[in-house]
């Protein structure tokens, strides 16, 4: 599955948005009632479980019961019936959790203008629809720092799902983080071509270990790369949730989702009325929730932890931008000019790699 959102609409969309959204924001017709549509099983160990762990926190903070439906595939025929059922029974804030819900949520939002729709990893937005996603390159940069500090062979590995924007930015940030503490670190990346394929992920992770890689990072939907790392007595860094649950010895740190930190205030904003959804979707930094680092395993030296947490604080304070120029790709082409920070649109379109990244991609 893939997760991302559309911050990449054209200028025309912005103008249309400006006029259509208008000055009057969205206001609920009654007290808020929130419901979730989950993409996979609520205990999938990764993406969906991160939402299910946010849910009780949201229930407590918002003082309501929040129901969910699990295993809703990215398919209009599967998404529409449960969403409409919730709406019929008075639920007025519907939260989706997959990229593939985007088009269906757009149609639902048009059909039900009095209902607020939020969609994680979505690409569509509207007067009552907002997509959201976390800036995972921030948390993965910090994991890259830990990996760079812990490697002995200076060879890091990475198991990625598919080579496009949001995976590529993770890979580049990971390598930049590693080089910040260890200029000799290289990152060997294998793409599995699937979001959830433990067999291929195992093959990829084992091939990396055979090559002499001693820390394996990842951006797929299962904990398999960390499990392989533990079996091979090397290290790994996780994604989605704290992967110490699956590989307590091998997992140095994890890039994790902290959705409650974003969703609770966002729902309060909707409840307050005059809500203006971001026409490009919300693209959340560590500061506002969404993504963060679970740091660190006890084998990581205190000094390294301190350095990583200092970098985290700099990101939160806005003192440090990961994709600040000058950044050249590995072929020497200037991608981000000196004194500039990469635009969100260029992040989503990223199809280049920084020096030190070794992959089968051109």
């Amino acid at each position, binding site marked *: 599955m893939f997760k991302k959102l559309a911050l*990449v609409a054209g200028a025309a969309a912005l103008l249309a948005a400006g006029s259509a959204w208008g000055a009057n924001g969205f206001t609920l017709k009654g007290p808020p009632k929130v419901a979730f549509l989950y993409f996979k099983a609520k205990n999938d160990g990764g993406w969906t479980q991160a939402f299910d762990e946010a849910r009780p926190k949201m229930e407590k903070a918002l003082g309501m019961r929040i129901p969910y439906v699990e295993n809703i595939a990215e398919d209009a*025929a599967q998404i529409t019936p449960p969403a409409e059922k919730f709406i019929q029974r008075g639920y007025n804030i519907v939260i989706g959790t997959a990229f593939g819900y985007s088009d269906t949520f757009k149609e639902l939002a048009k059909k039900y203008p009095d209902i607020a729709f939020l969609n994680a990893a979505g*690409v569509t937005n509207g007067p009552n629809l907002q997509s959201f996603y976390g800036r995972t390159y921030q948390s993965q940069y910090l994991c890259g720092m830990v990996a760079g500090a812990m490697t002995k062979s200076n060879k890091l590995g990475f198991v990625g799902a598919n080579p*496009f924007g949001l995976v590529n930015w993770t890979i580049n940030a990971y390598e930049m983080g590693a080089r910040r503490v260890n200029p000799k670190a290289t990152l060997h990346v294998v793409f599995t*071509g699937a979001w959830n394929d433990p067999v291929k992920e195992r093959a990829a992770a084992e091939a990396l270990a055979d090559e002499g890689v001693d820390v394996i990072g990842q951006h797929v939907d299962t904990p398999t790369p960390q499990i392989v790392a533990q079996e091979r007595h090397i290290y790994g860094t996780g994604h989605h949730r704290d992967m110490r649950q699956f590989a307590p010895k091998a997992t140095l740190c994890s890039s994790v989702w902290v959705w409650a930190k974003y969703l609770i205030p966002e729902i309060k904003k909707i409840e307050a009325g005059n809500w203006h959804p971001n026409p490009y979707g919300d693209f959340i930094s560590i500061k506002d929730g969404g993504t963060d680092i679970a740091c660190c395993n006890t084998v990581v030296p205190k000094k390294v932890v301190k350095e990583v947490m200092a970098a985290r604080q700099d990101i939160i304070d806005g003192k440090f931008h990961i994709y600040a120029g000058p950044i050249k790709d590995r072929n020497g082409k200037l991608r981000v000019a000196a004194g500039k920070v990469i635009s969100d649109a260029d992040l989503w379109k990223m199809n280049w790699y920084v020096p030190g990244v070794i992959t089968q991609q051109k």
Partner: protein
Amino acid sequence: MLDQAASRRLLTTDAASQRSAGSLRVGRINLEVRQSIPLWLQALILGGAALLGIAVSAALLVAAGVSPKDLFDEFVVETFTDSGNFHSILFQAAPLIFVGVGAAVVFRIRFWNLGIEGQMIWGGIGATFVVLHTIGPPALRLPLMMLFAVLAGMAWVALPAWLRMRLGVNEIITTLLLNYVALNFLLHLLYGPWIDPKDAFPHSQQFHSFERLPEIGWGLSSALPIALLCTALAAWLVLFSRFGFYTKFVQDNDRMALAVGVPIKAVTFVCVLLSGALSALAGFVIATAQEGRLTQSFFEGYGFSGILIAFLARNNPIAAMIVAVLVAVLFVSGRSLQVFYQIPFAMVQLIQAIIVISVAASEFLIRHRLHWVH
């Protein structure tokens, strides 16, 4: 010595059983293969099995904390009276009818096409090819998309058909594995040349309104009448035409069919191509009626649904159409149970499995007669 004792014991038990038989005639059950079965009895057995499955499922749900009254409201009243629910079911049913009938027409001649999902993918690719290359004027776009979808699906299934007829390669293996080839080619297109130029995400660009199947009123998509029309054509072909008679021959005894001059190869090939075409149309209606673009996972699960529907319908296209609608009822009602009772998805799958197994097991009673012998 031992033998004597044993035989004495045997004698006594025999005598005892004779005595008890005299006072209480239990008799025994004989199993007979039916030569034929009237349609009403067949329907009665299937209906009874479905009811049994539903009763067991209902008991499970009540044990899980759903009140029986809610259960009735949710499954019976809501399903057939709530217009939203009714729409959801028909929306879901159209592609299920295509894959179900597609599997039924080819399983009849004992060609096990497990490549339904691969053929669906090629149906989607064929239709999207027409969109991306703007072939034909807008008015002709949809028929052309449909034509390309059908041709692509037939081409994809022709290879395993040829391999089996020419070289005797098992089609179960080839059709199944070609699904993965089709999937990887789809991913190659969506992450490569066909990536949406507007947002750089891995799905095709959105289809224009004239490239999407129109609604026919009451919020129903035209996918449904197309599915019904295709079912009628397929049913005529395999049930009522001379060709259909040939398929029965091939199914029952292909050596005999060969001996009396039935064109076995032609019959097989036509059935396989028809199956590929119907599966491709499932991909076509999902892309053009439901999603409005080519996506990465539109085909997921339909392959096994198709096999299941054909099995329950005993490879009869008309029955497959009815079963497909019932399967859609199961899917949609299962979702609403989840919505209101927070029943885990596994439970929904369990219920679906119980009902399917009950109906499948009733096949035994359709083929056999239980005969009480006094």
